[in-house]
Every structure is written in structure tokens, then in C-alpha cells.
């Protein structure tokens, strides 16, 4: 199955909306454990990540550690975002690794786990990532660009125990988050 054809229906379980953990919390600062994609707990967490991402305004990705689970997996969906070029729709990747990352560009990003700050972060805009789909455990490769590449790199950083705060571009690249009412 291609990543584009995947949806949370493949998981066969109902996702639950979980609370999002905020920094400073130790689960956000340590590398997550590799997972068995066929483990029922992993399948449930995959559904929970998608469900939580869907109900969170503006959220385009969520890592296991952000809901308190130190498991190397995350959901992503950049569909409809104005900065998206390539999009693979909704998907969850387990044990994802960056294979190739090129053409870095700086942009301002925020995070549900750091709700009141944003920062300028340089990230690759051409990206190849490998991982496994939850449930089937099928090995997949995602080649993407632009905003989906940024979202994937942000989530893989979470799985490795890093926040965007660890990547911020300079002392004047950290900002209070603007809230638009």
C-alpha cells in the first residue's frame, strides 16, 4: 500500500482524543523507543494520534511523546495548508528515519507542546524518509517537499527528543506566539 492510499480506517480501532503534553516535560526531552508496528498498543496509539491531531486547530502533526507515550511514531496531515506542495494526506509512520534532506530554508514554526512561543528554524525542503505503517508494518518511503517536509522533520525531531527550541536559528529568532482572535 502506498502512503497516499493509507487512512486511519486501516487500523480498525477507534481513535481517542488525548491530552497534549507541554514543555517542560521529560517525555519531550528523551529519544522515544522503537516500536513493533503490529503491537495492538501501537495500533491504538496511531488511531489516537490521528484523532487528537484532527480535533486540534491548525495541528498538522503529532508525535507519540506529545501525548506522553515514548514511542517512535507520529501522525502527519498537511492537507489544505497554504504552504503545502506535495501532500500524502493523513498517515502515521513508525520508526521513521531521514534518508536524505536537502535545500534548507528558514521559516517560523510553533508546536502544540510549546504553545506560547514560536521560532525561526531552518529545515530541508526536499526530503526522503523511510518508516513503517502501523498495523501492517509495511516498509514505506516518503519523498516530499515544502511544508510536508518541515512537518515530518519536526515530528522526527520529537521522536529523537528534540523540540524546535533546540533548532532555533538565533537569539533573535524566538518569539512570543501571536494569537489571532
Amino acid at each position, binding site marked *: 500500500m502506498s502512503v497516499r492510499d493509507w487512512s486511519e480506517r486501516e487500523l480498525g480501532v477507534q481513535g481517542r482524543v488525548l491530552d497534549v503534553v*507541554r*514543555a*517542560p516535560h521529560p517525555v519531550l*526531552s528523551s529519544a522515544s523507543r522503537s516500536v513493533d508496528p503490529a503491537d495492538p498498543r501501537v495500533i491504538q496509539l496511531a488511531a489516537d494520534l490521528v484523532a487528537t491531531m484532527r480535533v486540534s486547530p491548525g495541528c498538522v502533526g503529532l508525535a507519540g511523546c506529545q501525548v506522553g507515550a515514548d514511542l517512535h511514531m507520529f501522525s502527519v496531515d498537511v492537507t489544505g495548508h497554504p504552504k503545502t506542495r506535495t501532500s500524502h494526506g493523513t498517515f502515521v509512520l513508525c520508526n521513521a528515519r531521514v534518508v536524505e534532506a536537502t535545500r*534548507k530554508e528558514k521559516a517560523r514554526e510553533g508546536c502544540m507542546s*510549546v*504553545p*506560547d*512561543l514560536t521560532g525561526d528554524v*531552518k529545515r530541508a525542503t526536499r526530503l526522503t524518509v523511510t518508516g513503517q505503517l502501523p498495523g501492517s508494518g509495511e516498509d514505506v518511503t516518503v519523498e516530499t517537499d515544502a511544508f510536508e517536509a518541515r512537518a515530518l522533520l519536526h515530528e522526527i525531531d520529537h521522536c529523537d527528543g*528534540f*523540540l524546535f*527550541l*533546540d*533548532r*532555533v*536559528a*538565533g*537569539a*533573535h*529568532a*524566538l518569539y*512570543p506566539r501571536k494569537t489571532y482572535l
Partner: protein
Amino acid sequence: MSPIAITVIGHDRPGIIAETTRVLADLGVNLEDSTMTRLRGHFAMMLICSGAVSADEVERALAGLAADGTLRVSAREVAAEEPLAEAGRPYLLTVHGGDRLGIVAALTRAVADAGGNITDLTTRLSGELYVVVAEVDLPAGTDPDRLGTELKQVSRELDVDVTFGPQEADVL
């Protein structure tokens, strides 16, 4: 004339920069390097200016800004500084973790003991989360890995996360 260092800090409202810089322009004082930002709701300006007037004259001219008691203004003559001949290699230090007393003191002590010079530093307190981002120049001959190891050790004692690495700058 010596450069004049001006600070304005206090309750934020629209027009502080416009009023301050209008007074300076009318005095013939040229605004050179400056930084202006909001710090926990206070507006803070630090300016280095030049002109053929004394700091006392500048402070008197700016007194109207402070008249309602919501802003504090100061102007002082400072020595002219020459740019450093050798800036060193740039590194970026980022720190985040639970807020506690002494995070900046302990980490900047480690940087100073290694001969590092901090050229820019921002801190933000956001709920319990404390974030520090500092730009550090290391003189030639300083071992960045050794300083990185030392900073990790200090961060473990403070129970915060630290990242230390070369400051990326792309020449396009």
C-alpha cells in the same frame, strides 16, 4: 562627541518609538545601533546614538516622555568602541526546561570560563517553561566539544536540556 547610550523602558503603548526618535531627530542625534522589544509587557529600548549634544541635553529633551511616570528614560555618554579585530567562530547555545533560579548564571559561567564571549542572548519565560538562546563567539584555539561537554554537565545539574553547535550562516 562621545556616543550616547539611551534606554527607555516602561508600560507599552503605541507611539513610544515615534516620540523618542522624533525628539532625537530634532536634536540632530543620529540613531545608530539599537534593539527594541517587549519584555513581559514592558517596552524596552536600548539605543547607541551620536550627535553634537551632551547626554544631559538628550535626557532633558526626553523628559516629557517620562512625565506621566509610566516610562523611565536615561541617557549616558559612553566610550567609542572599535569593532573587534577577530570575532571568533560563532556558536549557538539553546536551553529549555523548567524555570528555576540560576540557569543563565550557571551556563554563562561555563561559557565565560572557556573564553567564550556571548554576543546576543534572549530569554523567555512561558508558564513553567524557561528558554534561553545565546550566540557565542569562541576564540580560535578553543575546543568547542569540550565546552559542549561542560555545558551538558551543567545542564544535567540544572535539569534542563541544552544544545550547543556551530551557528549556521549560508553565504548565497
